[in-house]
């Protein structure tokens, strides 16, 4: 366990070398909220309530969900695995005495911790700059459950990204697929629009998918809504994480045999 902690620590520190990426991520978070502010400002100019949201609670939702989605940098795991398989440098993970998936988990959490600090700063600046009343729950139990769900969600997203990345062993080039997945996940996690605005039937189906619990439900819990879904959410997400743990082990052990270590 110590070696993974060391990997996370190194990645945490090394992020400072990639200041442009951190600044860009922060700016991207702020810009996303800004455009949500413009669109929803126009919507609430004509309506007082939309799907139970006021302008304040809607903006709070976007600040929280943008902050949480900024923590999920797992997409980089797929891209790194894919590029390393393609250029033949994935061999590194096969010769060092580590569990490859665990190594990517550690890398991801180390980097995400640094992003968390800067995104938190961006969110706070945003709230003060636009002077709206930030309405989050004060229920500590609910906040703890939301935090637990966020952690489980991040674990799941790394597992999912690892799985997609190792598909490169079989398909060679998965870049278009990863971009399509990025578009769909951005929607399914509720970072573009709160999922409660969708028809009830669609939301019911989405509850079976893990993405519903990665950003959307924790954000709703933090603003004090959807409390009744907490138990089911943690259970569903836990189950998905368990399933992907098994899938990744089986898939990695089978697909790695296709790797010849010289690149594609």
């Amino acid at each position, binding site marked *: 366990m110590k070696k993974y902690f060391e990997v996370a620590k190194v990645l945490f520190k090394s992020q400072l070398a990639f200041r442009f990426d951190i600044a860009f991520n922060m700016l991207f978070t702020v810009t996303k909220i800004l455009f949500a502010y413009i669109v929803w400002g*126009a919507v609430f100019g004509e309506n007082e309530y939309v799907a139970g949201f006021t302008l304040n609670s809607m903006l709070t939702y976007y600040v929280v969900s943008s902050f949480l989605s900024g923590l999920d940098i797992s997409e980089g795991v797929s891209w790194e695995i894919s590029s390393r398989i393609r250029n033949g440098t994935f061999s590194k993970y096969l010769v060092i005495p580590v569990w490859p998936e665990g190594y990517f988990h550690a890398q991801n959490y180390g980097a995400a911790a640094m992003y968390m600090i800067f995104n938190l700063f961006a969110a706070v600046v945003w709230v003060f700059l636009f002077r709206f009343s930030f309405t989050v729950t004060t229920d500590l139990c609910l906040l703890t459950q939301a935090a637990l769900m966020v952690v489980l969600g991040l674990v799941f997203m790394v597992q999912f990204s690892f799985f997609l990345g190792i598909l490169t062993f079989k398909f060679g080039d998965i870049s*278009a697929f990863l971009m399509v997945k990025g578009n769909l996940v951005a929607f399914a996690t509720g970072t573009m629009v709160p999922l409660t605005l969708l028809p009830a039937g669609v939301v019911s189906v989405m509850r079976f998918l893990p993405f519903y619990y990665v950003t959307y439900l924790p954000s709703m819990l933090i603003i004090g809504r959807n409390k009744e879904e907490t138990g089911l959410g943690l259970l569903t997400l836990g189950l998905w994480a368990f399933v992907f743990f098994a899938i990744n082990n089986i898939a990695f052990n089978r697909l790695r045999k296709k790797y010849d270590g010289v690149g594609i």
Partner: protein
Amino acid sequence: MKRQLRLIWILFKMKLSHMMVFRLNFFGAFFVDGTMFAVQIITFSAIYNNVESIGGWSRGEMTVFIGTFSLINALNMLIYFFGVVDLPQKIINGDLDHYLTKPMNPLLRLTFEKIDLGSLPLVFLSIGIILYGVALMEASVTPLMAAAYIFLVLLMTVLWYDVELIIRIIPFYISSAQRIDRIEDLLSLNFKVPGVLYKGVFKVLFYFIIPYGIMSTIPTQMLAGTLSFKGFAYGVGVVVFFTVLALKLWKIGLKSYKSASS
């Protein structure tokens, strides 16, 4: 002119044969951007399920807006995006030498050397979205309005090209700006927001300084019959200004180009 067209045709044939080698990726751009616009439609549809209008725009106008945005993007991907996308790297590592030493206008070659036929279905998909939006609007579109709309879409495609080029020639002046094109990801976010929603400082910013705000909005207003002559003239003026600016900056930038040591 005839010679330039012949060269573009040769570049197109070369690109097509290259694409045939990587058949799996042929429709990559179509699937990537197709899902992006599908998500955009679903997002606004979810909002319209709860409200009647957004900033005075009905569901029909918003659908035309998304279709127009999709169409301009499709034309961008089809014609010049893949040609100019890695211009910053070419400037920094000196690959631009290969373009400057050939007996052909380097910008013309860069612009047309990677025409992507795989994006063509996206053009048809976008036209479908626009027609659906027009049906929702229940507005009467005259042939003159349709012609003016097509003219404006082509004009805004040129404007997008101008902005793409301006962003990508910054490494002529600042060699450390390798990832300057990521700024575009950030700025183009406002392309997804109808320009009619901007007020005050944002209107100044996205209508005058970084004109992404007008690219889909002005053609949509034309089709909806809400574009004034002043608005039309403004759109044309902005495109002329940015085209002249982009070409000037390109020419000045070339003088600062220090080949492989840039």
